[in-house]
């Protein structure tokens, strides 16, 4: 018998559940299905189309028309695997660069006097609330051939010819470091802030110099923050679309951009879907590693 309590519980669970099923899982299944279909000059532009009115023979006919052709195609055209590799390389490089910029910043924040810290944290978070697009765009004016950076360097006499930065991978690195810096700084700061100051005193008491105490105590103890921050930068960077589109050049190959163009310009939905499926497969590994790191952290805290 269903009492009112169970009814309410059922409603509470099923409303968000059904929403996510319909608007997250089902679309995803559709992507997967279309990745196994063939391109066609029809609306929608792929075949086979599932026809529920045909009954069971329709289902089997539909299933037998699905194949891995698009995935085979991805391996034959080197555009795709170069795009995957180049995305990986750009994501790794930018993550390392973000760490190099972010760690000293987080370390400085953690060492700052107590009364400054809320303000410093707010200063790191504030850009996050500001439009992502605007922040990426702001670099266009700086990095352009006649941009502020070149004007400044030429004016100072440091260089005689303007640097070409915009529309290169360098601009993409800068864009990623800039937009994802808060994601790196905050977890590292959290780890450093928890660090017990007396540990450093103990290390120095036992004969460490301040430098070696930093490498032997501070860095290992902030490792969970470094790992979390790196994943938080790496994962979105891998599928990034806006930054390479605005700051990168025609030679900048990133899988998010390829996917968008495959879909937008070539209207090849099956291939776009296959690209998406593979991108997701690549992302699953770092995501699982990240989850495991978080899990370990939670267990360590208990």
């Amino acid at each position, binding site marked *: 018998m269903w009492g009112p309590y169970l009814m*309410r519980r059922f409603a509470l669970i099923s409303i*968000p*559940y059904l929403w996510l099923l319909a608007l997250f899982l089902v679309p995803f299944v559709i992507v997967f299905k279309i990745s196994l279909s063939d391109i066609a000059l029809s609306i929608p532009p792929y075949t086979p189309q599932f026809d529920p009115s045909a009954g069971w023979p329709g289902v089997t006919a539909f299933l037998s028309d699905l194949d891995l052709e698009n995935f085979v195609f991805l391996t034959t055209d080197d555009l795709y695997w170069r795009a995957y590799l180049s995305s990986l390389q750009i994501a790794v490089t930018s993550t390392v660069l973000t760490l190099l910029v972010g760690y000293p910043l987080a*370390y400085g924040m*953690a*060492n700052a006097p107590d009364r400054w810290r809320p303000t410093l944290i707010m200063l790191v978070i504030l850009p996050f609330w500001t439009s992502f697009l605007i922040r990426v765009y*702001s670099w266009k*004016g700086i990095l352009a051939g006649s941009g502020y950076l070149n004007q400044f360097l030429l004016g100072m006499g440091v260089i005689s010819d303007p640097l070409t930065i915009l529309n290169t991978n360098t601009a993409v690195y800068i864009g990623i470091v800039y937009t994802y810096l808060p994601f790196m700084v905050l977890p590292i700061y959290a780890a450093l802030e928890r660090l017990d100051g007396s540990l450093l005193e103990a290390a120095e008491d036992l004969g460490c110099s301040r430098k070696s105490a930093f490498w032997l105590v501070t860095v290992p103890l902030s490792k969970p923050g470094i790992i979390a921050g790196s994943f938080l930068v790496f994962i979105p960077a891998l599928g990034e679309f806006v930054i390479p589109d605005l700051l990168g050049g025609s030679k900048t190959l990133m899988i998010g951009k390829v996917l968008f163009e495959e879909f937008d310009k070539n209207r090849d939905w099956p291939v776009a879907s296959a690209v998406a499926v593979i991108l997701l497969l690549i992302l699953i590994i770092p995501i699982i590693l990240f989850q495991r790191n978080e899990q370990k952290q939670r267990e360590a805290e208990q």
Partner: protein
Amino acid sequence: MRRFTWFNATSLTLGFAFLYLPITLLVIYSFNGGRNVAVWGGFSTKWYGELVQNEAFLDAAWVTLKVAAFSSTIATVLGTMAAYVLVRGGRFHGRTLFSGMIYAPLVMPEVITGLSLLLLFIGIGFDRGILTIILAHTTFSMCYVSVVVSSRLVSFDRSLEEAALDLGCSPLSAFRLVTLPIIAPAVIAGWLLAFTLSLDDLVIANFASGPSATTLPMKIWSAVRLGVSPEINALSTILIGIVTVGVITASLVSKRAAVKRQRDEQAAVAN
């Protein structure tokens, strides 16, 4: 003992300069009166004047606000429900799938989310426009709301709810009278996050919208793909100003509340 060294001071200065210089330059050059966007040609607010005249931008801004208001409100309701189910729901069939669907959109590349929603809308013959953008934004931002709210619910003393039941509340009124007022700051933060995410989103809106609806980020994007535009600088300045004032006000309010609370607690110990 922590020591604030010269090295720390330098890295803070450089780090924050890196974070704020591009935005500052953008704001300054939005007041540039000259023809060449990169060369300072005197102070002027003419770009703001042109911006206000530009109907296309105003329309896009209105669409964006509507989308953000609706999607963040629905997302807050759904996300709070989802958080409650995750933290308090106990065991039920498909719980693992449910929590997977809550966390997956947080790490899913926007291009994939956008593509999959587009294929869904086309597949079922749903006309794309404001409504589809709202649906798309609600879906991903409810996951953010649910993460924010569930982190508050986890630290929530469950005996408060039990006390409410014990004193005669039905489960629903216990939620309304006790749980909701206490987690309200997290729910509001979730709503703000959802609202900002929706205002900010370009990629998913681009996939989910049809010719009938253009959001502000889509408009900005198509304008800036070609190069630097002084009008966009002016628009950006306005948006940055709104966010800055909002965030600073919010943090001052919460800081004042925290200080008052601390003072109260000290007074309570004293008497």
